[in-house]
Structure formats: C-alpha cells, structure tokens
C-alpha cells in the first residue's frame, strides 16, 4: 500500500473532490449522531453538565492518531507526506483563547454549526453567519494583525520532536491521558446527574 494515495498520484483532482464529499458526509453524520449539532450539549462541557465534547473529540483524536502510528510503523503510510500545519506559538495560543471565548458564547464551532444548521437549528445558521462576518473582519484588519500572525514561528514540529520523545512514547502518553480523562468525565457526569 502506498499511502497517502493522492500524494502518490493514485487519484486525480476530480476524484479527490468526491472523496472530500464522502468523508465530509461521514464526519457530519457522526457529529449529529453524537449530539454535537446541539449547542446546549456542547456548552455543557464548560459547566461540567455534559462532557460529550471531550468524549467525542478525544476518542476521534486517539483513533486517528493510533491509525497513523500503526500504518506508518507497518510501512503502509509515509507520514512525512501527510501535511503537518506549521506552528506559530503566539497566534496558535491567542487564536485558541479568542476561539474558546466565542465557543462558550456561541455554543457551536464551525463544523458543528453546519450540522446544527442542516438539522434545522436556527441558532446554527445564525452562528454560521457570525463566523463569515468574523472572517471578513479579520481579513479587513489583516494589515494590523499580520505582525502577530507571522510571529513566533517554529515550523512543522510535533510535540514528540519538541520534547525529544520517541513518537510511540508520546502516542502512549496521549492514549493514557485520554483514558484517564474518560474515567474522570464519567465520574463528573455521574455526580451532576
């Protein structure tokens, strides 16, 4: 197996758009199935009443992370050809902080707002409109923000490389952290119910 297939020229651009549509359908389907179209369930994460965000997100991250690790270990996937977003310390941290405030205020994130809107939620549609407006504001203010936007660049770097740990050790630590957080989440939910 020569993965990623697209990177090795095994499928063309039009086929890649069909893949995008199908993968998107699967993503949106499981988001709605898990209850992530419901803003009140998502906001419950921040009041410790419903920890569905943590459970869905962390199990998705662990699943994909383990899949990548083993496929690469078995020589089936060339991890160096999977695109890794470069790190910019201050923009990532500050962008995350700004995003988090908007998240608890709006109760949905970009992907889940699409699912909320398409399952009939008016708040999801309104939030999508707000997001387009926010992106427009950012674009118009870009001359003022570009100093921050390009600052503190570290390049394409993983947490394992940064800490000098083998990839497998970090994967193991993340799995243990995820399982620990699931146990904790179940205890917290049991107490509030």
């Amino acid at each position, binding site marked *: 197996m020569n993965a990623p297939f697209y990177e090795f020229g095994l499928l063309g651009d039009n086929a890649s758009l069909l893949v995008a549509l199908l993968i998107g359908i699967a993503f949106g389907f499981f988001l709605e199935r898990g209850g992530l179209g419901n803003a009140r369930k998502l906001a419950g994460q921040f009041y410790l009443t419903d920890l569905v965000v943590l459970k869905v997100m962390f199990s998705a991250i662990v699943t994909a992370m383990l899949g990548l690790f083993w496929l690469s270990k078995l020589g089936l996937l060339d991890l160096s050809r999977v695109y890794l977003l470069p790190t910019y310390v201050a923009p990532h941290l500050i962008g995350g902080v700004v995003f988090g405030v908007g998240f608890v205020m709006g109760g949905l994130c970009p992907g889940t707002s699409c699912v909320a809107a398409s399952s009939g939620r008016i708040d999801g549609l309104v939030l999508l409109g707000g997001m387009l407006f926010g992106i427009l504001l950012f674009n118009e203010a870009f001359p003022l923000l570009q100093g921050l936007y390009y600052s503190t660049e570290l390049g394409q770097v993983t947490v394992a490389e940064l800490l000098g740990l083998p990839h497998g050790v970090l*994967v193991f630590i993340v799995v243990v952290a995820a399982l620990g957080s699931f146990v904790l989440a179940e205890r917290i939910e049991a107490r509030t119910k």
Partner: protein
Amino acid sequence: MTQGASPRPYMNPYVAGVGIGVALLLAFVIMGRGLGASGALSTVVATGVNTVAPDHTTDRLPYEAYLGDGTVSPLKDWLVFEILGITLGGLLSALLAGRFRASIDKGPRASNRSRLLFAFGGGTIMGIGAKLARGCTSGQALTGGALLSVGSWLFIIGAFAAGYMAAPLFRREWT
C-alpha cells in the same frame, strides 16, 4: 416532520468519536491531509468579496490565498466539498433519527433573541480566533491533534482554558 414521534436518542459518544476518527484517518490515508471547516468559510468569504468588489481582493493576502489563479472557480476546492459533505451528513443523520426540526437550542432561562444575538457574536469571535490560529476545532484540534502538532495542542489548551474562564459570563444563556 417528527410530530408525535419522539426522536431517537444520540449515539454513544465514544462510538461517534471513533467514527469521526476513522473518517479523519481515511482523509490522511487517501489525501495526505486532514479535515477542516473554517478554511472553507474563508473561501466563501473571499469568493463573495471578489464577486462584489473584485478590486478589493487584489494584493490583499487573506483574500488572494483563497482565490486560486482564476482559471477555475475558487469554490472547486477540497474543503468546500468536504464542508458540503458535513452539512449533508448532518442532515442525513437527523432525518434518519427523526431529529430534523426547526428549533433553537438554549438554556431554560435564555430568550430566543438573546440566544441568537450570542450565537452571532460567538460566531464572529470564533471567526477571528480561527483565522488567527490558522484553523478551528476541525483543522487544528482534530487534525493537528492527531498529528501531535505543537501549534494544534497549544490551540486546544488555549481554547479550553479560555472557555472555562469565560463560562461564568454566559451561564444565564445555558443553565
């Protein structure tokens, strides 16, 4: 559409998470890239501004980066098709579970008006944050999280820490 029939309960969140993880893994294996959502919205904004005021997007990086070379429509883009899929997938799941219904999700003390104002405001703030962080919960938290990218984990830590710190301000809206 579901008058009378009660909607089916949500799936076990761990099973839904594994489903999303498999979709994400397939994107890595087939395409060599992960999922995203805010990137597609950036393309929509750039295309919209370019249609209304073509001169305004020239030499302005946040627009030009999403408009391509002009030979094909900027909407013929991987993330745009993927976000269309997300929308269709959500619709499909809601219809199959008898959950499709015009509604507004909010806490018992919140009015529809305040909920929609906060939804718009929260969306605006998230739009700015996602642009600054070069991605959102999909492109940074899920995709970069699984790839163990340093920036993505900083984004996750920043977003959740800020969410918990800001939560008391919005308690009336949700609880």
